[in-house]
């Protein structure tokens, strides 16, 4: 196929951010971030298989403030990617494709992901009686 010197479409930076484009970018960003999270999960499981000391060290890292920051980020990324993935499936079924609906579902997904993340972390702290 001839692709020669055709003009290229301008890239992301020339467009004004909109809820639709920003959430689309979030979907890919969270997906890549969750891939790193999946590697952390594999590391965590392998540490448990390796022995109690290795598991303790991994747990110590994850309960350190930096580890908790990562876990908080992964919690939101997972819940956002999950909620927005459901939004994608509605589109796949041909539903909710009018622009006002797309914007509304976008805000709904964004708010739902934040609320669910805060709920999960409140529950997590509740489990410990606030000891961490």
């Amino acid at each position, binding site marked *: 196929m001839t692709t020669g010197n055709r003009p290229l479409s301008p890239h992301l930076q020339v467009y004004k951010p909109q809820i639709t484009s920003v959430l689309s970018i979030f979907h890919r960003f969270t997906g890549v971030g969750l891939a790193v999270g999946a590697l952390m999960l594999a590391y965590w499981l392998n540490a448990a*298989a390796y022995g109690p000391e290795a598991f303790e060290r991994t747990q110590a890292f994850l309960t350190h403030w930096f580890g908790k920051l990562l876990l908080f980020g992964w919690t939101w990324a997972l819940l956002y990617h999950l909620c927005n993935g459901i939004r994608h499936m509605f589109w796949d079924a041909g539903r909710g494709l009018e622009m006002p609906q797309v914007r509304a579902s976008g805000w709904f997904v964004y708010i739902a992901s934040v609320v669910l993340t805060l709920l*999960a972390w409140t529950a997590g702290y509740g489990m410990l009686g606030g000891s961490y």
Partner: protein
Amino acid sequence: MSLRSDLGRVRGLGSANEGTSHWWAQRVTAIALIPLSLWFIYSAVTLVGIDRAGFKVWLNAPGSILLMTLFVIALFYHMQLGLQVVIEDYVHNERNKIVSLVLNKLVAIFFAVSSIIALIKVAFGG
């Protein structure tokens, strides 16, 4: 020289030359991951700061190892499919693209299998 038109050659294939199978697998793993991820987050919340002995007890509770194994399979499969699209979008050099795609598959399988073996070791080992 082929007599097929450009359109005929690419119809139904897409950038990775594999048609809709990728799209379909991504949706199937996504559907599986909805309940599995929610279960995993719920479990992770209950496992905050746990020691290895506690983790082993949890893993031996009914359903834990089954759901963890299913979660790991669906997660790494879905991860591989998603990263494949990212590679196809941004890696334009043909050689680098193929190397990245192969590495992506091998790394995903490595981490999935090692996770499952780790789960079995913890659940049934000492």
